[in-house]
């Protein structure tokens, strides 16, 4: 059995892929897990495709290299599907989690041969409704929590309260909770 859960986040510069990867890791620390969170080490430009990574394990993590075979791939921005090979290295037993209004079965048409699970969540809509802005990082974190069960909502709530203050923390947690509930697989 693979001991380390490896998550790869795809977004565009400024959308918060690294923030989301870090929030997931920090939530896992609240559950006494070992973690790593790091961005793709390249140029960071607003709007350009970026990636970030999270590792979670019950044992200390000694690997110090990129994630080559993620168990989970998260796509913050669906426009990336056309330009970035987001499923590269994703195992058959893995999960692809996409920000999309579509039904997972509809999304699957683009990945005909794929055996991995597909999850969708209308992250942009949830974010606009609650935050008033299309910032999808926290919504996608909620969907990841639901799809993987890697961390509890309680741990995420603690982490969000450490990271953000007052109203921003409350609203972001509301986003996470709604995305958690709305995430669907197929």
């Amino acid at each position, binding site marked *: 059995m693979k001991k380390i859960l490896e998550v790869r986040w795809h977004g565009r510069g400024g959308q918060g892929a690294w923030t989301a990867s870090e929030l997931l890791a*920090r939530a896992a620390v609240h559950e006494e897990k070992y973690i790593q969170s790091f961005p793709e*080490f390249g140029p960071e430009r607003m709007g350009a495709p970026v990636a970030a990574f999270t590792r979670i394990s019950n044992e200390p*993590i*000694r690997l110090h*290299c990129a994630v080559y075979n993620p168990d989970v791939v998260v796509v913050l921005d669906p426009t990336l599907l056309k330009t970035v090979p987001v499923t590269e290295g994703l195992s058959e037993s893995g999960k692809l989690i996409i920000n999309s209004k579509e039904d997972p079965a509809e999304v699957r048409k683009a990945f005909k041969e794929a055996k991995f699970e597909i999850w969708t969540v209308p992250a942009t809509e949830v974010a606009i409704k609650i935050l008033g802005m299309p910032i999808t990082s926290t919504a996608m974190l909620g969907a990841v929590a639901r799809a993987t069960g890697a961390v509890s909502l309680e741990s995420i709530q603690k982490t969000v309260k450490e990271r953000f203050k007052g109203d921003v923390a409350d609203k972001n947690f509301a986003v996470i909770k709604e995305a958690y509930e709305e995430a669907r697989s197929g």
Partner: protein
Amino acid sequence: MKSAVEQKILALNGDEAVAYAVKQSDVDVVAAYPITPQTIIVERFSEYVANGEVETAFVCTESEHSALTACLAASLAGARTFTASASAGLALMHEILFVTSGCRAPVVMAIANRALSAPINIHGDQSDTMAQRDSGWIQIYAENAQEVYDSIIQAFRIAEHPDVLLPTIVGLDGFTLSHSVENVNALPDEEVKKFVGTRRFPNALTHEGKTAPLKLDPDYPMTLGPLAFPNYYFEFKRQQEEAMKNALSVIKQVHDEYARISGRRYGDGLLEPYKLEDAEIAIVCVGSTAGTVKTVIDDLRTEGVKAGLLRIRTFRPLPVQGIREALEHVKAVAVMDRSMSFGGQGGAVFHEVRHALYDSSKHPLTVNYIYGLGGRDTSPSQIREIYTDLQEIVKKNRVEEPVKYVGLRE
């Protein structure tokens, strides 16, 4: 090994781990150049200063050359002193690195190991510190964020030890450690404060024939860093070498003492062997890639391959005898270098490990692998290939290509 005290579990990147350790280490002066190639280290530390969480004097200078000069002066006046840099910043300090070690000023510096231009690159490799290996600074390299934190705290005790009095670099691989968040167990503030203590000074004879602590003090005037022409310069250099020798045992003592409090050990503080005792083939490396190597070793061991690792934690002073004793029973050794010594037939670590093995009658076969320059990633499968190469070398009992390159397009 159990910890003697309750520790706080934090999630920090390597840079933050440095800043947190410095915050707890009762540092008097931090001088730094706050612009690229600077890291989060001084940014985070400047927040501690602004928030009144530390009483440190924080000096922003106009260049790294000036930053280290300010640290040198503060250190000679008796202050516990810290700075941080990387890449081109360390290169600009080059002149003052020698002045600092020659003045025996125990400045502690964190370096987020990064490449040197050209072509322009600020990503992870060890070219910056390896280029400074002869500057008279102690060099300790960490494998993960936890060790970064632990090593910074230990560095103050090592550098300031009266038998040593040498400036000390703690290296953390750029990005792989500096920008990656990992779990860090932090000691309570008061434990760190107790551990680092206050700076101790050996006594020296002043101009006026009085005995006083070795530091700049108007009440006891003395000259530090004076002119020493052919009549004395050589003796000063010989003393620095003696201090380096003393550092070998001081680093071990400080590491042991710290381990009793924290419950954490990194080999003997100088070298960390991993599954090396019965190993037939071994990798030697410095820094964070050692963690990836360990993971690969665990896999190889389940397949019956007797693979091992020797991680060099302390590169200056080089534990020559320790390296020899750890490796001489191994049949073939692959030394990994994350920097180049152009025209030198191999990297710095390779040269030094081969040098250490020369006096062994057993002479294991040695081969060099240059890897990860300019931030190129080194994967577990690439490490596995190195072990496969070593098996081949053992079979043939011969090294065909002494210097190889990992993950390079050719």
